[in-house]
């Protein structure tokens, strides 16, 4: 539609036809105040704060419900308008308590700002205020009724945004109140969106209330450390006895791929860092007991033993297990450390999705993966397997928002009637484990139709309905196809093949944990180096890293077998809990020298010979790659004294082993290097890293503990990672191209063990979050996750 011209406050402006007046004004920098209007939610017209004078219209109009028309003449700040707004504020303040000095929202309250702007200092009301005690609706949601100004934002975001519909409005007129769905408490997903969106302090969070004043915090925006979606969370931090404490998480500035969305984990589950069992001292096993020790002692012990094993039994006697939650830099460094220093390819991690299969399927086919942002704008989405509502809350939010606001078509193929079915235009229920059959059917294999259209499946589709669904899906253009870990190896290849027959289809592979994609891409595999480069011939990395072992190493399970057989003499576990999460018998490791870096004494740390207290992702800097392949910056927000980032610990172990750290982390040498200008027999080899830095206008890093030095190397060497550094530092997400990766081979599908986390669990980490546990205890009906 053509743009329309209108005049606002004497200024000629243009706006797209059909735009709301309030948005048209906002776009040209004219602020029209409002409480109930919220972009993306349905229109309410309840608060009357956005009234403006439109010429030739008899009364003041609400800018949030008026669409722009050609030739409209609007005044947003006339005396009449100001008078009306002032009166509205006066009415709102009629029963609003003036407890701003102790209110959580004080200082960032929209009503406070309005009272400041319109100065309703007088009140004609003489009546006593109607006070009601505050109510606790759930472990994280508190409601202070008199503070509520009835903007209905919470009701709408809970219903329309979250599709939970746990909040409503009861009674009528002045006695209207916001009510939870279970009379006096909430039964909901505990996302905290209602608290976040509340313009005043009516809804407050159990995690943050009465802890601090907003202006006493510093704010650091970083990436959530829980699921693989990569939401940006802005952490409010302040100094405390033991370092820097995180007191709040939100994304009110709407930066990042998640806009203002966060689930309970991103919003509240940073509290594991302050759990009383947090390790803040290295532990060494002495006389069979883990005993506190100094860092020097610990590193010396590890360095000595690792070197002994390597020199006597060879690198093949050492195993390395990486993490799904450490940064790309740490994973890259670990992968490099294992190959270069430990001389082993026995490198693996707890795999939750088959990213190498995706890399293999899309090798040399650029533009075939979707970013998290694409999910919000794609005209159609096909979801195969997984339950995003529980496992990928942001993905579910993007899908719901897209369906609601842009009428995207959602097709779901799942073995359970998952919640997103409510948004689906087509739903195919398949028997458990038959997702791959559905993919083959979509790709044209009609022989599987009988097993899919089995009449024994209650609510299943008939043969004709399956064929109709396939036809509809095949006709969709620019569709995003997201699939869970139900599809592995050849199934992914089949799906990618099917996707390539559609116009503009893009894939998303869904894995658990915040950086499982990063762990994959940084080569935490026995047969893959960073960028899915196979260990043989590995020309690129042989040249860059030096002499590397070329034999395929042991997978995690093979390492355990080797440990049992007594041939795995040492095991280095970084931020992982294979004993607890993968059900490994701890006795298997009794003969090996085990080093564990973790925050807590996990089941794995418990049997270790040396335990090093690690910093978590909120306490360090680096980058994360989310499950879609969006690269984002992780920034240090909190700090707990006497813990170290995994990055520093890896470097210190390499140092304690007597190896040259500068061969591991490129630092410091830039200014003296041969920039490649010299020629001839006498010239040294050009310092490729220094040349790359120079070409990208980057400074050489000064210490081996700076993860940015490894980021330089990642960007230089890992296919697809050469994205704009400036954009990365600015906090923007950048989608990576997987097509440039090495042609990796298929992995054994058995090695993939999905985390099966739900909204209130998060692997081993979740056990140490008081908030998540309190919600669990509150939901007695929800079954406990088995043995975590």
């Amino acid at each position: 539609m053509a743009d329309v011209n209108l005049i606002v406050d004497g200024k000629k402006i243009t706006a797209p036809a059909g735009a709301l007046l309030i948005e048209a004004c906002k776009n040209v920098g004219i602020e029209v105040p409002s409480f109930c209007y919220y972009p993306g939610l349905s229109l309410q017209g309840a608060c009357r704060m956005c009234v403006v004078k439109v010429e030739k219209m008899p009364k003041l109009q609400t800018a949030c419900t008026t669409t722009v028309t050609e030739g409209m003449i609007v005044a947003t700040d006339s005396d009449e308008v100001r008078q009306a707004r002032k009166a509205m504020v006066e009415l709102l303040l009629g029963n609003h308590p003036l407890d701003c000095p102790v209110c959580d929202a004080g200082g960032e309250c929209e009503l406070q700002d309005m009272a400041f702007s319109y100065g309703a200092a007088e009140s004609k009301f003489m009546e006593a205020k109607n006070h009601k005690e505050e109510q606790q609706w759930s472990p994280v949601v508190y409601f202070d009724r008199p503070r509520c100004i009835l903007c209905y934002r919470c009701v709408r975001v809970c219903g329309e945004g979250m599709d939970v519909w746990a909040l409503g409005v009861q009674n009528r007129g002045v006695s209207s109140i916001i009510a939870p769905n279970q009379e006096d408490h909430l039964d909901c997903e505990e996302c905290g969106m209602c608290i976040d969106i509340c313009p005043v302090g009516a809804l407050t969070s159990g995690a943050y209330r009465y802890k601090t004043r907003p202006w006493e915090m510093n704010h650091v925006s970083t990436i959530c450390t829980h699921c693989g979606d990569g939401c940006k969370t802005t952490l409010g931090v302040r100094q405390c006895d033991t370092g820097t404490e995180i007191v709040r998480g939100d994304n009110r500035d709407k930066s990042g791929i998640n806009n203002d969305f966060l689930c309970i984990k991103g919003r509240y589950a940073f509290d594991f860092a302050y759990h009383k069992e947090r390790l803040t001292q290295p532990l060494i096993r002495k006389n069979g007991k883990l005993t506190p020790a100094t860092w020097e002692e610990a590193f010396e012990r590890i360095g000595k033993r690792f070197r002994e094993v390597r020199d006597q039994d060879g690198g093949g006697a050492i195993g390395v297990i990486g993490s799904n939650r450490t940064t790309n830099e740490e994973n890259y460094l670990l992968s490099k450390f294992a190959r270069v220093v430990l001389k082993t390819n026995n490198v693996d991690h707890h795999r939750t999705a088959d990213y190498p299969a995706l890399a293999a399927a899309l090798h040399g086919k650029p533009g075939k993966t979707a970013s998290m942002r694409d999910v919000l704008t794609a005209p159609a989405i096909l979801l195969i397997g997984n339950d995003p509502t529980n496992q990928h809350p942001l993905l579910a939010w993007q899908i719901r928002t897209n369906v609601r606001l842009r009428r995207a078509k959602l097709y779901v193929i799942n073995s359970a009637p998952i919640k997103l079915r409510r948004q689906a235009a087509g739903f195919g229920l398949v028997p458990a484990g038959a997702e791959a059959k559905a993919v083959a059917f979509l790709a044209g294999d009609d022989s599987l139709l009988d097993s899919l259209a089995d009449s024994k499946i209650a609510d299943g589709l008939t043969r004709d309905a399956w064929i109709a669904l396939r036809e509809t899906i095949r006709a969709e253009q620019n569709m995003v196809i997201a699939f869970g870990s139900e599809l592995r190896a050849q199934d992914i290849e089949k799906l990618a093949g099917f996707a390539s027959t559609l116009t503009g289809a893009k894939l998303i592979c869904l894995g658990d944990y915040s950086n499982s994609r990063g762990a994959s891409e940084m080569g935490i595999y026995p047969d893959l180096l960073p960028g899915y480069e196979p260990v043989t011939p590995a020309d690129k990395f042989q040249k860059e890293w030096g002499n590397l072992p070329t034999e395929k190493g042991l997978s995690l399970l093979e390492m355990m077998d080797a440990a049992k057989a007594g041939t795995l003499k040492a095991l280095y576990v970084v931020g992982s809990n294979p004993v607890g999460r993968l059900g490994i018998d701890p006795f298997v490791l009794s003969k090996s020298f085990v080093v564990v870096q973790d925050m807590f004494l996990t089941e794995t740390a418990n049997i270790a010979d040396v335990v090093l207290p690690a910093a978590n992702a909120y306490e360090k800097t680096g980058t994360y790659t989310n499950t879609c392949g969006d690269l984002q910056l992780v920034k240090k927000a909190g700090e707990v004294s006497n813990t170290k980032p995994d990055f520093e610990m890896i470097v210190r172990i390499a140092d304690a082993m007597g190896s040259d750290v500068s061969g591991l982390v490129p630092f410091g040498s830039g200014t003296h290097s041969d920039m490649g200008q010299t020629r001839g027999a006498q010239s040294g080899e050009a310092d490729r890293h220094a040349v790359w830095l120079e070409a990208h206008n980057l400074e050489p890093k000064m210490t081996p503990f700076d993860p940015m030095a490894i980021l330089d190397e990642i960007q230089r060497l890992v296919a697809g990672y050469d994205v704009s550094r400036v954009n990365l530092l600015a906090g923007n997400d950048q989608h990576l191209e997987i097509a440039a990766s090495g042609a990796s081979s298929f992995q054994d599908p058995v090695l993939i063990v999905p985390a099966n986390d739900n909204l209130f669990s998060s692997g081993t980490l979740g056990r140490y979050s008081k908030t998540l546990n309190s919600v669990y205890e509150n939901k007695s009906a929800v079954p406990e996750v088995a043995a975590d």
Partner: protein
Amino acid sequence: MRFSEEFETRFADMLTHYPTKRSALVPTLLYAQDEIGSLSDEVIQELAQRLELTELEVRNVISYYSMLTTKPRGKYNVQVCTNIACMLRGGEELLDHCKKKLGIGHQGTTQDGLFSLEEVECIGACSWAPAAQVNYDFHENLTNTKMDQILDNYKKKGTQ
């Protein structure tokens, strides 16, 4: 939860009147209340399920309308109008008289469960003020004596 056949016929018919199911909520609530006496948790659960709403949404609507109630009322709900015309013609005195006679206040119910009393806004019978409504029946040009008689009649009818 079982309703009478009459209710079911009405309900089925009601659904055909609206483009969406949820629109049938208010009349359905009224029919259910007439039949059951009040909108119990069980009724709310049943209707929410039938109309594809959350129980919370059903409760929200009930709480909005003063004619809908979740608490059981007496067999005869005496609604005395005290709006302007009735007030000028003695509606408030009539309400006071009822309170005394029945021994209950506004929105109270007698011990025997026979009567409930309610002060209501205009019931559209201004020409014959003061007026009162007992369930769906109107009684007009009331005096205290006339009211006594009416209540006695209902009592007789109710205890037979």
